[in-house]
């Protein structure tokens, strides 16, 4: 089971990182979702992997095996948060898409005249040095 869980986390993370590095918003959202799944499974595994064990102690006080309940609570919180964050991300990227009519993640470079934008006064730009902006 350890191999299975570990490789699942690895595959999810690798796919997530690959997708996050794409240039379009939609793959990036999918990639972040995959990354958050990987994080959730990882958190779950951080309390050791046991199967068929209750997450509570025996009331009689007998020495019984149990699974650590705290990571389950952490995962629950993380799932709720990542769910909400993904919703926000989808809405923001939708808003950006509607504003720009393109779902590219990168900001347009300053020098590129945008289609439809009237770049009227570029007069002052010639005097200043280039390359201050980090267009990521």
């Amino acid at each position, binding site marked *: 089971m350890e191999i299975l869980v570990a490789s699942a986390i690895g595959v999810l993370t690798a796919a997530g990182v690959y997708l996050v590095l794409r240039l379009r918003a939609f793959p990036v959202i999918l990639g972040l979702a995959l990354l*958050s799944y990987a*994080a959730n499974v990882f*958190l779950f595994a951080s309390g050791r992997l046991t199967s068929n064990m209750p997450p509570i102690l025996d009331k009689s006080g*007998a020495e019984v095996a149990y699974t650590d309940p705290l990571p389950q609570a952490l995962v629950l919180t993380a799932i709720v948060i990542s769910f909400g964050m993904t919703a926000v991300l989808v809405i923001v*990227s939708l808003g950006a898409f509607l504003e720009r009519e393109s779902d590219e993640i990168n900001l347009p470079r300053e020098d590129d005249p945008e289609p439809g934008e009237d770049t009227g006064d570029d007069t002052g*730009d010639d005097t200043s040095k280039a390359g201050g902006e980090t267009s990521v």
Partner: protein
Amino acid sequence: MNHWIIAPVILPALLAPVIGFVMRHDIRLARTASVAGTLALIAIAIGLTLLAASGPDPHVYRLGDWPAPFGIVLVLDRLSALMVLLTVGLAFFVLIHAIATGWDARGRHFHALFQFQLMGLTGAFLTGDVFNLFVFFEILLIASYGMMIHGGGRERMQAGLQYVVINLAGSTLFLFALGTLYATTGTLNMADLAERVSAIDLEEAGLVRVAAMLLMIVFAVKAALFPVQFWLPATYANAPAPVAALFAIMTKVGAYAILRVHTLIFGPDVPATGGIAEDWLFPAAIVTIAVGAMGVLGARRLLPLISFSVIGSMGTLMLAIAAFSPEATTAALYYMIHSTFAAAALFLVADLVLSRRENERLNAQPPITGNGFFAALFFAAAIGMVGMPPLSGFLGKLLVLDALRAPDEMAWAWTAILAGSLVTIVGFARAGSTLFWKSTALVTQPRPEEGAGRDAADAAPTPPDQPRVIEVAPAMGAIALLALLAIFAGPVTGYVAQTSAQLFDRASYVDTVLHSDANLPENTKDLSGESNGYDEADADGDAMGDDETAIPDTGDQNTGEPAIEGGE
């Protein structure tokens, strides 16, 4: 147990939904409630600061009165009290500015998001539990996403998308770090972590070191430290200027978290992780200063210029933090107070200036109304930011320089700070003279038609001719605070010196949280002897097996965190 400790979290958490749901149709009502709430927060924060300064030990608030490693705790010490006070003080200036300039009416739910942001910030500063820190980070981030795209516009949405993506990736990394930390230590309480990490041998410390580095990367993203500083200029330059001014505290959250976690848990004298943070932070901070300075020199618009100067000041701050010594931390804390208000003052002044210009390019345009007055404001705020004498930036940088005298770091640190300051001064001088001085040489012509540049939608429809007092008061207030910080540098330095002394007194923190009598209610006293072994208890159940009272702690974690989460 003093219940006021949780008030800075509860008050905005209760106020924000009321503003969002009940007062959404009446901007005046929302403004009144928001200002009243922020004023109340300031009063509470002053009270908490006095409380924290009253004794040598931190004050602990146990939620639900669960004993410490099991329940969530809030810890009020001098550092967290200082940061809460700094946050709400800054928030007040920003709020007044946003109201006076009408920024809050250009989109919906500004005040509700603002209060949620304050809730996340104060919670992050007060919490004593690293998973809780994650939750509060998410609260302040989700509020900041809304604030960042407040008012809309193409570039802002685009930059907002990048900001959300980078922070979501950071949150994922945070979760991985917490998972690693829990897997190796079996706890997420900061004081408990401090005890257990310092007990780990060097041979078995590999995973803990991984967790420490992951956490540092996460906090470095927030603190805009090289090489993860790239998100900051696009975000700050495209955010509404008052929001960018509030974000001046967001970078400090990262700095605070590094200071707290890498002093208390992974401190310099802990064998498992000793010096790992220092080795990486120091060169990163040097490069951050260089990036900031070059960005200031190369920026072609005013807001990116200020954003890069924020990066530079974060580099200076992290350079002082990277030394991890009480003297350097004293300097860092003083500089942190200064740079927060300096950055905020610059953004507020820039907002006033840019709303009167056609676009935000740094070129000569017909002079704005009140050109001389705004030139003076910009001059004062820039002096504060670059660290020239009359204001507190000079003293802050002097303290930092004075604290970094170790022979192997002095050459690098002094060169970086001094050269960085010089380049920043040149950048600001050029920007100021272009904006205000060269403009006066132009003959005032009838303006070309509106609509050039991206700010057409942002700019107020008809900028008022003369600046109103209420508009300029917050910016002047922030600058006045810089002056006061310089005048009362003695008492302030005294307070932050005690703060850093308390920060490095790890034993006192751990004892107050874990081993004080208040942490052992009658019915749970048996737990105290067993708390050390429960991490390996999952497989065989030997450590906690015979104690019923161990069950509620899991219930507390189950209900406690979703309850806070539910506040969103």
